[in-house]
């Protein structure tokens, strides 16, 4: 099971994601996110993925994020990603996933918007 350490900052549930999010681990990533997403509902803390430790993401990994964002929206929760490394940021831009998954430059910047 993929390890996703969590912490709380300004009322936001911050989840640290590390390594490569590729085809080989996308299902594991989905399963690891499931319990966190289940709690990402209206009135509950926003769910923020800290991507500062992610070195690569493939299309399969991007899909996991899109599905997570959709689920959170359907549950009226808040979901976002923050602190993308420059190369991962480029993948988001090239794939245009920066237009469909909320992204913030840093965890602090995200918490200012999403925190309570």
């Amino acid at each position, binding site marked *: 099971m993929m390890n996703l350490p969590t912490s709380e900052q300004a009322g936001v549930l911050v989840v640290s994601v590390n390594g490569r999010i590729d085809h080989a681990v996308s299902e594991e990533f989905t399963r690891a996110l499931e319990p966190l997403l289940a709690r990402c509902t209206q009135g509950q803390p926003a769910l923020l993925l800290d991507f500062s430790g992610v070195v*690569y993401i*493939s*299309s399969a990994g991007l*899909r996991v994020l*899109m599905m997570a964002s959709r689920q959170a929206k359907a549950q009226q929760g808040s979901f976002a990603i923050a602190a993308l490394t420059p190369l991962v940021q480029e993948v988001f831009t090239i*794939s*245009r*996933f920066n237009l*469909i998954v909320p992204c913030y430059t840093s965890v602090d910047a995200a918490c200012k918007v999403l925190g309570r």
Partner: protein
Amino acid sequence: MKQVVFWGTRGALPTSLTSRDIHEKIVAALVVANGRSFRNRNALEEFVRGLPFAVNGTFGGNSSCVEIVTSGPEHIILDMGSGARPLGQAKIARFGVPNPQTYHIFISHLHWDHLMGFPFFAPMYIPGNRIVIHGCHPRLEEAVRRQMQAPCFPVDYSQAGAQIEFDLMTPDHPHYICGLNVIPTLQLHAGDSYGYRFESVDRTLVYSTDCEHKLEDIEAFERFARFFAGADLVIFDAMYSLAEAASVKSDWGHSSNVIGVELCQAAAARRLALFHHEPVNDDKQLARLLEETRRLEQITRGERPPLEVVSAYDGLILDL
């Protein structure tokens, strides 16, 4: 297989430049020239050649039609989009009439943008020519005939002078045609489409257009990576961005530059040609897409050998 010639590269429907597009290209060129003068025509030509492709050229134009040039006497054509019209004219100009030729045409699927050039393919009207239309759809002949019937077209299919034959192929089986092993495979597209893998003794080409790749279908990803394995050139449907293909245009039957790179990397293919361009995208957008795709390949390459990325345009000739 020696070369590939792209006669039609636009997806969905033929798309011409507008007056506004031409105006912008001229303005962009004059801005770069910045008032300089040229001592002769050669100097001017050299300056024009040095301009970005989005300024001195255009991606075009016609809908899907690609030619494979071999050392054999027979002609191999992939799809009959509107690019089949200039292709047919070029063949007539080169071989003249009467000078019977044989054309092997492989049809990816029966949607109009892949068939609409056939009534304008001049060799079909010339007695003595032989045209073999290969495909996997049971209704292939019906679809070709139907578009040449009143009230859709003024010339009835029965007026064809060439001898026209239909060859119903079996997916995932090799077929030996014109000295090549040709393997069709089923692709995800409304009404089904088929990709083709062409293998000669020393070259492999894959033509895979109008195919959607669902991001959650890892098994299909691996199947296509095997289908593309070791290809010298993969001609790939890169109509949408990944985000579009996975969200608002999901189930529209097309793919993206990102999936093209990932599949070619997994397949250890040598070269990727972005194809079936979205009609909404102008030359500047398509040029940007190419640069982004090359950058994506660079930053995701890892230890693999480089994958060359090109963007197909009407008139592009690639040596294999």
